[in-house]
């Protein structure tokens, strides 16, 4: 804060010095006008110097003939004092005052302002450098984080790919197992169905045979029953039996 105060003070001193230089230039114009008035003499106007100038003004206001032209001429002479000095080469006094002010201002600036400005610049530079370093460090950290993130992302992708492959393999194994089980079940069901059909067929054939045999045997028994009522048939059966036993047959 004090460094800024010193810089403001140096600017004020420089302004005062420049004002002094301008003031010295104004005194030069004034003395020129004063000299013109002191040497003033007009034809037909009494007195000289300031008196002559004063009488010319009175004559002009009284609209004396010729007074107006004299006044215009006198004004031209006075305006000659107001003409600008040489734009290339200043007045000596102006050079002296300006140089002195410049030296004072330069000294003040070198004594107070430059160190402050330099310090401020160094601080700013340091801040910028710190900011740059911080940015570089953050950039490095970001790059490291990015690298870590990319590495983790790559690992995650690899892990995801591995999991997907593993899941795909498991799914394939499960699908194959289910397919094998389904095929086995289908084969078993077909075999069972075929066995059931075969058993049903055998049972139906057996039932049919049994029914047919029952019918046939029933018919045979009916026929035999009628035949066996014949005593001759009974006698013949006994004789046949005796003959078969005698022949060694049962």
């Amino acid at each position, binding site marked *: 804060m004090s460094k800024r105060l010193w810089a403001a003070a140096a600017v004020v001193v420089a302004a005062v010095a420049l004002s002094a230089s301008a003031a010295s230039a104004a005194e030069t114009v004034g003395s020129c006008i004063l000299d013109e008035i002191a040497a003033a003499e007009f034809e037909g106007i009494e007195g000289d110097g300031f008196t002559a100038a004063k009488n010319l003004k009175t004559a002009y206001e009284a609209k004396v003939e010729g007074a107006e032209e004299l006044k215009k001429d006198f004004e031209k002479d006075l305006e000659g004092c107001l003409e600008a000095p040489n734009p290339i080469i200043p007045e000596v006094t102006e050079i002296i005052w300006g140089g002195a002010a410049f030296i004072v201002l330069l000294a003040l600036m070198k004594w107070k302002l430059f160190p402050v400005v330099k310090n401020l610049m160094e601080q700013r530079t340091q801040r910028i450098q710190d900011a740059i370093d911080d940015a570089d460090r953050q950039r490095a950290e970001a790059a490291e984080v990015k690298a870590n993130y990319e590495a983790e992302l790559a690992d995650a992708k690899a892990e995801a790919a591995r999991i997907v492959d593993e899941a795909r393999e498991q799914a394939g194994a499960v699908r194959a197992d289910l397919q094998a089980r389904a095929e086995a079940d289908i084969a078993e069901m077909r075999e069972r169905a075929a066995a059931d059909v075969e058993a049903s067929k055998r049972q139906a054939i057996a039932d049919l*045979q*049994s029914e*047919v*045999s029952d019918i*046939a*045997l029933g018919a*045979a*028994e009916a026929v*035999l*029953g009628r035949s*066996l009522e014949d*005593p001759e*048939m*009974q*006698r013949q*059966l*006994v*004789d*046949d*039996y*005796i*003959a*078969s*036993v*005698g022949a*060694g047959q*049962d």
Partner: protein
Amino acid sequence: MAERSVSYADAVAAVARAEGNLDLVADELFRVARALEGSDELRMTLSDRQIPAARRQQIVEDLLGGHASDTTTAMVSMIVAAGRSSDLAGIAQEAVEINARDRGRSVAEVRSAVALTDDQAERLAAALSAATGHQVDVKVVVDPSIMGGVVATIGDEVIDGSVRHRLSQLRDTF
């Protein structure tokens, strides 16, 4: 055969031998047993222990008196009085076996749907003797359930020529 039936048969045979008519007693006993087989009412009456033994013996004597020898009547009466009428068939069978063994012969129980003529019985005995290799006495039992033909049982051997057996074989063939 039950040991008890064998013992009763031995006793019957011993008495019959003593009387000298074992052949007759065995035959009559066999016929009585067959008759008892064919009558459920008679069998149940003789087996009923609620009926006094004397009454049952009286029934036996009334049935057999004049139709069988005294020895046979006495043996059957004794068996019924002892409450062994249900064993009478076995006792008769064993007595027949004993009689046959005494004469060096075997007994064939022959079941027929109709009664055999004497000629048929003789020819059958001759055929069975030829088939078994030793002399056979034929004891005929009329059994209509066999429908027709003959079933001969000699010891453990059965020669089945019945119509019932043929039908059974035919049924098994189907």
